[in-house]
């Protein structure tokens, strides 16, 4: 019984990791209607920026607050320089750029920061694990941060004019332009925000799985699964999806199918959900007029 409880909690902890990255995927999707495969690598790169600052003597939260705007700028610049010329190109061209970015960030990070595994500090204190050794302080703290980020995104899209304008720009660029929404700026903003959320996710994930240029490879797969499961149009759905994937993965791996089929199980469930409910568990079905 103890084992089951422990598996469940460790599943929630992994789920928190997937949820935080899933949020960045939701953000970029909301803003551009594309899924950026390089999101994970960009987050990893931002985490290295934070680590460099911390190693240079900057206190953790200061480094955190510097890294987020740097990542925002990085995302916005990528949109302006690389994505904008492709605005009218077929979707495959964008996919090509995403994959190119993924490889680029990965190699550049390896080149600058080397491939050696690095520990990343946690702001929540090392200390003894809480609740009888089931969950570490960091896991608890990072889950809280994920929820704060979730709440802000939800409020941003729900209550601000800017959020509404961004949704409009992604959903129907032509009409938005006609009613006066600066679509290009909205897209750059979306990229910037997604990169910032990714940076936060990276900084929350790195203390758990250690920082190296390939840190996000596995995480992105599960985060993607979580986002699709919960609904890629819905931040709350994506977070819940992330947690569900974490729990299913752990319990399924430990008790049902064995560790070899963990990922397969997660993906199988997604296929089933998407077949039955293509918008995801919590996604809104969007009907657009052609």
């Amino acid at each position, binding site marked *: 019984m103890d084992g089951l409880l422990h598996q469940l909690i*460790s599943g929630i902890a992994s789920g928190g*990791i997937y949820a935080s990255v899933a949020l960045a995927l939701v953000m970029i999707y909301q803003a551009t209607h594309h899924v950026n495969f390089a999101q994970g690598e960009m987050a990893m790169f931002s985490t290295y920026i934070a680590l460099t600052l911390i190693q240079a003597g900057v206190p953790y939260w200061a480094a955190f607050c510097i890294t987020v705007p740097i990542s925002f700028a990085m995302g916005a610049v990528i949109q302006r320089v690389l994505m904008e010329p492709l605005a009218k190109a077929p979707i495959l061209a964008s996919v090509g750029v995403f994959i190119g970015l993924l490889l680029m960030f990965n190699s550049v990070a390896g080149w600058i920061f080397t491939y050696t595994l690095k520990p990343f500090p946690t702001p929540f204190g090392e200390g003894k694990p809480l609740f009888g050794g089931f969950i570490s302080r960091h896991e608890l703290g990072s889950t809280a941060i994920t929820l704060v980020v979730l709440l802000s995104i939800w409020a941003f899209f729900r209550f601000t004019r800017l959020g509404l304008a961004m949704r409009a720009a992604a959903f129907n660029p032509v009409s938005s332009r006609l009613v006066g929404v600066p679509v290009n700026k909205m897209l750059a903003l979306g990229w910037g925000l997604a990169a910032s959320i990714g940076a936060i996710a990276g900084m929350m994930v790195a203390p758990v799985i250690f920082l190296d240029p390939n840190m996000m490879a*596995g995480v992105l797969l599960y985060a993607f699964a979580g986002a699709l499961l919960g609904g890629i149009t819905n931040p709350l759905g994506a977070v819940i999806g992330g947690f569900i994937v974490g729990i299913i993965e752990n319990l399924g791996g*430990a008790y049902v199918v064995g560790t*070899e089929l963990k990922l397969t199980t997660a993906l199988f469930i997604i296929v089933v959900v998407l077949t039955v409910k293509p918008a995801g568990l919590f996604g809104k079905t969007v009907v657009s007029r052609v």
Partner: protein
Amino acid sequence: MRRRTLLTGIGSTALLATPHIAKAQWPGVTKDEIKIGHTIPYSGPASAYGVIGQFHTAWFKMVNETMGGIAGRKVNFITLDDGYLPPKTVEQVRRLVEQEGVSFMFSPLGTANNTAIQKYLNQKKVPQLFVATGADKWGNPKEFPWTMGWQPSYRTEAQIYAKYMRKEKPNAKLAVLYQNDDFGKDYLIGLKDALGADYAKFMVKEVSYEVTDATIDSQAVTLQSSGADVLVTAATPKFAAQMIRKVADMNWKPLHFLTNVSASVGSVIKPAGAEKAVGIITSAYIKDSTDPRWKDDPGIKTWRTFMDKWLPGADQTDGGYLAGYGVDQTLMQVFKQCGNDLSRENIMQQAANIQPHDCAVLLPGIGVNTTPTNFHPIRQMQLTKWSGSSWELFGDIIEGTGA
């Protein structure tokens, strides 16, 4: 008639040309040169291994400049970057064999990379000598008579852990975390070799992970819940570091054996937390240049002298340079035994009958030898325990049960 004239013409041109082109005595070997091929990642995720390639290059430079080469021939050591990508290795090795016409491939690096070229080299009867990987499959002279490993295999390592465990904890309950591929499975095979019929009695839980997994926390929980008191972790650095930390966080205190693939202080023990790793046992066969106990060791001194002169400025704490030195000594022994016959057949035959020689950087008591039926040159290791600040050797040299 005209045709005959033409042929004679070609023939005489060829004759005239011969004195200018050095005649190949054997493939890759002329009167004054021997070509040796090598592949290693100088770029990409595994580029840290590149230092071994730099070492070999410096070594052969020294051989050419101070020893007059091998049997009076200059060594032309051609080392190419494969980025750790097996398809690239195949491309580079084909180039080395077919275009450059090397005599043999020396110590190409990587398990998947060597697997990709093994069939090709064996078909072509080109020696694939002293490959730089710890997989067990390189010592299989029946199927692959042209391939040979050098370092102790993962399987040998696992046999050694099992032998020690059986002696120290005859009632052990054993649990294993292994990577679900050739590397991880070699450890299961090694444990089975050494425990034999008792394997089922000792083993309470085997759990695998995939390299795509984000964390191994779930596996760690499963292993702990099994009630095991001995743990073997056959995981690559990232997962090994996670495991060390998780085991400590769960307050689990098993006798913990860790694959020496992940024994790096810098990239595993320190990230995981030096105090969390106290008591972990791994194994070694090469001296550690940072260990003060070898400060005055003649072997390490010889190595340092070489490093200072031929690789000035190189980071002497990098274990890659020591491994390079060791395998180069074994190759020199093969050349010594070859004498003046540098045919591929003779090189392979001598490699299969290596006589004892001084590798200088191997731990005292560890020998290198092969026979035509045993292509595992090094089969002994010594256990070493993490004290909280360094690895400390203990106990005797232990020999694996043999392939």
